[in-house]
């Protein structure tokens, strides 16, 4: 069995490595994207001003006036402690508790300074006193924030299209039919494809990760081993998604359509480019069923917050369980022809 898997694994690797154009795209595209985003957005954050508001009933008076300020996005939080980290990291510009009239700002944040002026102006005629509390913390550059998502996104494209297209092409041109006429079983074939795609994805993304770190010097506060685990599990999950799509389809056009149907929502709703905080609750819930959301969030927690396995265990659990389910479905519905 392993001899047959190894034979298919080697053949698929040779195909991929010798297909220079697809290899080049797999490496160059994410590097290009990171460069574009690094230089386009490091100086100017594309987000509006963001103010966190601690929930506590309907706002009245000066607080209501402040909340009506145009071009400021107000995001509701339940408690102060959990939200302070966002002020420290410049993810929100100011945190305001209208129940106690306290607010927290990061002195090194230019946006924080402007929003603070707006808050003070709103309360100027109210006679109510505001209490300023300063917090400290480095700004997270957009490039630091976006890199985990971009690597996740690159894994997604490589996994979905890398495995989906190959199997559909094999089926369309009769390669699968020829393999079926040998002692190779469906499980052996699929295992070889998964392993081949997995190690290629890991190898390509390790190169990209190292190269980008060298060029951009992004933030990495957590364990490399944990990050490797997240990206590996994410790769397996997304490969299994590709497997399910490719299990029966024999037309490249149909496969292309279905794979795009999977990938584009993930591109924009998994929080790769922009934070989902403040998005409609339904959209936030929908994002949680997308594997890329879990890959991106877990990788960000490791790289930016330095979180360990206990903090990302929910993401790992979702990715692991759904991978197993997708693999079983893919193997069950797989057809050689």
């Amino acid at each position, binding site marked *: 069995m392993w001899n047959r898997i190894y*034979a298919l694994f080697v053949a698929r690797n040779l195909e991929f490595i010798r297909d220079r154009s697809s290899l080049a795209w797999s490496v160059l595209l994410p590097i290009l994207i990171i460069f574009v985003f690094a230089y386009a957005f490091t100086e100017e954050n594309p987000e509006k001003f963001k103010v966190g508001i601690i929930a506590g009933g309907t706002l009245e008076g000066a607080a209501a006036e402040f909340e009506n300020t145009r071009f400021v996005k107000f995001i509701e939080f339940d408690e102060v402690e959990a939200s302070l980290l966002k002020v420290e990291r410049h993810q929100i510009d100011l945190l305001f508790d209208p129940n106690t009239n306290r607010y927290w700002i990061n002195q090194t944040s230019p946006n924080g300074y402007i929003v603070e002026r707006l808050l003070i102006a709103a309360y100027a005629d109210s006679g109510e006193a505001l209490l300023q509390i300063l917090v400290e913390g480095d700004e997270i550059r957009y490039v630091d924030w976006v890199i985990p998502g971009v690597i996740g996104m690159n894994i997604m494209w490589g996994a979905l299209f890398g495995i989906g297209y190959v199997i559909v092409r094999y089926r369309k041109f009769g390669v699968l039919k020829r393999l079926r006429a040998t002692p190779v079983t469906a499980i052996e074939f699929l295992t070889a494809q998964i392993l081949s795609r997995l190690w290629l994805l890991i190898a390509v993304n390790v190169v990209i990760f190292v190269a980008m770190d060298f060029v951009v010097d992004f933030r990495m506060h957590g364990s490399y081993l944990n990050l490797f685990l997240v990206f590996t599990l994410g790769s397996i999950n997304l490969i299994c998604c590709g497997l399910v799509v490719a299990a029966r389809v024999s037309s490249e056009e149909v496969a292309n359509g279905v794979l795009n149907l999977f990938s584009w929502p993930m591109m924009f709703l998994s929080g790769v480019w922009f934070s989902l905080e403040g998005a409609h609750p339904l959209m936030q819930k929908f994002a949680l069923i997308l594997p890329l959301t879990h890959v991106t969030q877990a990788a960000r927690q490791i790289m930016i917050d330095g979180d360990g396995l206990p903090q990302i265990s929910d993401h790992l659990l979702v990715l692991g369980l759904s991978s197993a389910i997708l693999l079983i479905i893919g193997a069950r519905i797989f057809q050689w022809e």
Partner: protein
Amino acid sequence: MSVILQVSSLVKRFGALTAVNDVSFSIRQGSCFGLLGPNGAGKTTTIEMMEGIKTPDSGTILYRGEALGQQFRNEAGIMFQTTALQEFITVREIMVQFSRFYPDTYGIDELAERYALGEFLNQDTRKLSGGQKQRLLLAMALINKPKIMFLDEPTTGLDPQSRRNLWKQVQQVKEEGATILLTTHYMEEAYELCDEIAIMDHGRIIAHDAPDALLAAHFDDVVLQIQAADIPREIGEREFQAIYRNDSAHIVTGDVNETIEHLLRFDIPLDHLRIRARNLEDLFLELTGKELRG
């Protein structure tokens, strides 16, 4: 000789079409069995069910008395009508890959020498000519020292010389003891290679025996072949029931002397007259009413 493959009451439907309809036959070990039929007769569907590629709707296929299983997969060599190979890998690499699928195989160099693959052994599979690709596919089908081989129209599209070479190679495999199941469009090929043939039409077997036995059972006459230009069509069809094909008129007769005298009475020139025995092509035409390559 014992039976190696037994097919019983095989049925396969595609929607409303019954592609294979209650087909039964058996193949003796060490023989070459030919499955002939016009396009759409159900040959490829039948052979693909026997290969385990398609699942029959009903009926049984037994290899050495058992349902197709791992032993069959290890011992069967299969060459499809058309096969795409993985891209960006060389002939040697694909041979190595396939040799890893089986427990007992020929060496790559041994096969390369036997099927003259040496000249393109390190070439990308995308760059092979038609003849080279057929030789490679045959070598791939033989890599596991098969006990039974399935060849689905193996020489279609090959030039006459490549076709003859492939026949020689198939005969050699047969001499080494392998059983062969062959489908073909070429009657000459079937006659040259097969010990037994079954003719299929509309999903059924309509004749089945050794080629000579089939000819003897169906014909006791010969064919006089005259250039069409030498015998006006109205005379040929009215007086001799001649069949005009391409630039020849074919007259079937059980009494050659009388037919020749009859032709002379109409002053038909006999300079290009050919007399030939009835062949599988004629048998096929008589049984199915169709040209084999039509």
